[in-house]
């Protein structure tokens, strides 16, 4: 735990010292808030964050891979991973520290979007509990994408490859949960197959929580999904560490 905290601090600092994080943050916030604010305040005229949370997964899909691509690949490229591996800490702690730092950074960016619900609350009757639930879902969803991105970053030393592979995998996972694609699958998969494929996607579970229904199934899914990729990440690193 202490080791994780040390890594967490180091990673978080590196995020805030790096200009990329700010470029990422400004772009992410600019695009997300502009479209969501236009949709809610001008077109929608309803005190609802549906537009915001409808767009968020797509933007996370685009912005998370560039954020996570450097987590292990850069360490490997610059050789600092050797130093990190000699650090007397469990591999899992290293993975957890990096993962938490990425999620904390995304959480910080999400906090900066709170102005929109506050505006909606000031001019209308915003239903706050589902909004809080949706923010929680966003964090879990972002965490899932970070876990996947970090895993693919651990497989290669090339950041661009890591980014492209995770972008592809995340896009597939995102689309699997989209109801439109489920319709296409129906033509050549049995119903149980479609349900299985559909059930793999974090998007499906995100949608459920974001709608205002907090289900233990969704929370268990997110825990398992993230746990799986983080464990696989740790396994890859452990394998590399023992291999020398």
């Amino acid at each position, binding site marked *: 735990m202490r080791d994780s905290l040390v890594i967490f601090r180091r990673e978080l600092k590196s995020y*805030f010292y790096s200009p990329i994080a700010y470029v990422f*943050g400004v772009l992410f916030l600019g695009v997300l808030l502009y479209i969501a604010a236009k949709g809610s305040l001008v077109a929608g005229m309803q005190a609802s964050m549906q537009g915001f949370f409808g767009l968020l997964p797509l933007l996370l899909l685009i912005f998370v891979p560039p954020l996570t691509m450097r987590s292990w690949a850069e360490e490997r490229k610059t050789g600092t991973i050797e130093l990190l591996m000699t650090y007397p800490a469990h591999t899992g702690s290293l993975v957890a520290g990096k993962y938490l730092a990425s999620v904390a950074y995304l959480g910080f*960016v999400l906090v900066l979007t709170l102005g929109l619900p506050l505006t909606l609350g000031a001019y209308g009757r915003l239903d706050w509990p589902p909004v809080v639930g949706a923010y929680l879902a966003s964090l879990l969803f972002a965490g899932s994408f970070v876990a996947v991105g970090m895993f693919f970053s651990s497989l290669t030393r090339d950041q661009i490859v890591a980014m492209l592979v995770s972008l592809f995998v995340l896009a597939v996972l995102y689309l699997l949960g989209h109801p439109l694609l489920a319709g296409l699958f129906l033509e050549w998969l049995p119903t149980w197959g479609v349900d299985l494929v559909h059930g793999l996607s974090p998007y499906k579970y995100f949608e459920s929580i974001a709608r205002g229904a907090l289900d233990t199934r969704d929370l*268990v899914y997110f825990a398992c999904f993230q746990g799986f990729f983080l464990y696989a990440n740790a396994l890859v690193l452990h394998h590399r560490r023992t*291999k020398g």
Partner: protein
Amino acid sequence: MTSRNQTAAGPRCAAQSGAALAVTVHVLLLAVVLGQIVFLASRHRLRFDLTSDQMSTTSASTRTIVDKLDKRLVIEAYFSPKDKLPVNLRQSREVLENFLDELVQIGKGRVVVQRFDPNEDKAIADRCTRLQIQPLDLRSQSSTSLSVDRHWQGLRFVYGGGKQKVMSQMLPASWFAAEIQLTPAIKEVATQQKRKIGYMEWPIASGGQQQAGGTGWGALRSVDQIAKRFEFQNLKDEDGALLPNDLETLFLYRPKDLTDRQKYVLDQFLMRGGTMVVFADACEYAIAPNRMFNRVPVVLDAPGSSRKFVDQLACYGIDWKPKVLADMAAQAHTARDRLTQAFEYLALPQQTQFGLQMAAVPYPYFFHAMAVDWSQSADQLATRDGKLDKDLAAAYRKQFGPGIASDDFLWKAFQQVGRGPGFYWPTWVGLREKAPGAVDLPAGVTGRVMLRSSPAVLAEDPPPALDPIGRGDARARAQSVQKFQQKLAERFQSEPRQQAPLMVDVRGTFASFFAGAERPKRPSEIKEEEAKKAEAERQAKAAAEGEATEPKPADEQGPPPPDAKQPEGPKAAPEADPLAQAQAPGRILMIGDSDFLRDDLVRGDHRQAGGPYSTLGGAFFVALLDWLAEDRDLLELQSRVPVDRKLEFVDAEAVPTGDARLAEQALRRTTFWLVVANVAVPVVLLALFGFAVRLVRRAQKRSFHASLS
């Protein structure tokens, strides 16, 4: 050397591939275990509805109705396979199936769902056709073919093997939508006996002519949800027969031209402990196509009636002032969303920069009671020229009360909406008072006011016309509206502040209005008596003549008088003796408007022209029926009004009278700046933070370099 390397590389390679295999197996096993955990979690799950209006949770209504089922409810679900459904319908199927599963769970064996696939078996498809379950034929297109697919999504409820209901096509978009359709259907099949309600109505005369249909109050009575649970019987008998003894509730829609006999019938109904609901109006205004609002003469008491209906009501404790009311409080006569729903009250097409738009015309004769405690506005109302009159404020605080002055479940949904149903040219219906503010109810009678206007109400005798629009072009009409409002404003300045009661509930053991007086006779009795009298006179005359002349032989006497020797028809049962005092507690519910339930207003016949349209009239009528029947089963469901989450960027009251253009400009300005602020502030904050971090880092670096040098 090479061969030694090769021999060493072999085991290493094997070890590496073994390790990779181990990792893969490890990962696969983990995936399987986690998959199992997710699967188990989906089987045993807990669900929390975070929405404040609980729109994704089964309401108490559904639970109560299912709990009360004493026979088995079989729900036959005629569903074609889900995997063949188009994507947009899959969501509704999921919602429906989840809801049916929930019903089975809360039914604890009393609810059984049987699924049939009409596409699989022609016999089932034929049965669907017989049951009038409608298929959904959708065209599907692929690169090589074009076909029409038939989908089924209908339900049939069979309760106790007998009563049934068919829902031909169910496509609920949400849990709430499914519940609002299915729960009343269950209630309907589980209702053993319809509750009987009598009514008398005096249809709206237009231009002096009765319109055969469309301007009565029948539209709501024939709504499926109501007609399946309540049996309405027209009891307006021209001969004035007493009402059946088993009748508990009687509705009077805009009573007028009442004869003494009709008043007696109503009186005796109350003496037997009946509940009388009166939708009263002081006048009748014709809504002509050009909405001229001209008064059609209304006389409450029929010619020849010696007793006044107003006095009769006063005898029971009700003070009805047949005056027409106008509420000058802007929020009372403004539609909830006047930019888009102006047709609820009155709107006119106006040319704006955004094209021809309906703009609301403030018309205080159409208003609603507000769910506001007006006593809290006492200070504001007692302030004149910036000075607060403390005594007056104290008097107002005592005098004024809440607009919806009742916590009864009838008002639950309306309290949420923040107002009662809209009334159109309403009238003053209060409790009898001996002095202003001093209620004077008869002994054994209790009463309460349930709805009130705002304290800014004006009362007047119904004028011949209440037309704010006039004729002519747009300019002339605008001038006419202005003049109309100016007149009202002048009256408002000169008249004292008062709050008009709009609905009262009076109950107890009433004393008969006809106590000590002779029972008014039925028209047939009067006719009979007159005939008898005429016959007696004729006989007396004949006898007098007979004395003077010789009696004629029988065959020369001519035909016998009409009813002298004819066989007598079935005689009406002798009427019960008049009751001077109530045998059982009776009840009168009097509402100062009947227009809000009128067919044309409920159906929205005038929407196209810009109103009026009674948007909440139907909801009120349904709630009223359940409230009178003390049937709370559907209460939770009916009161589940989705909260209005509309954004209010511009204060509608701040915009000069109904100018859509100004409102639109103000709206655009506000939203533009809000969008700019929402985007710019976080982005700039983040950029500034980054810049500050950079400066700090640079300073740290410099000081580090300086320390080195």
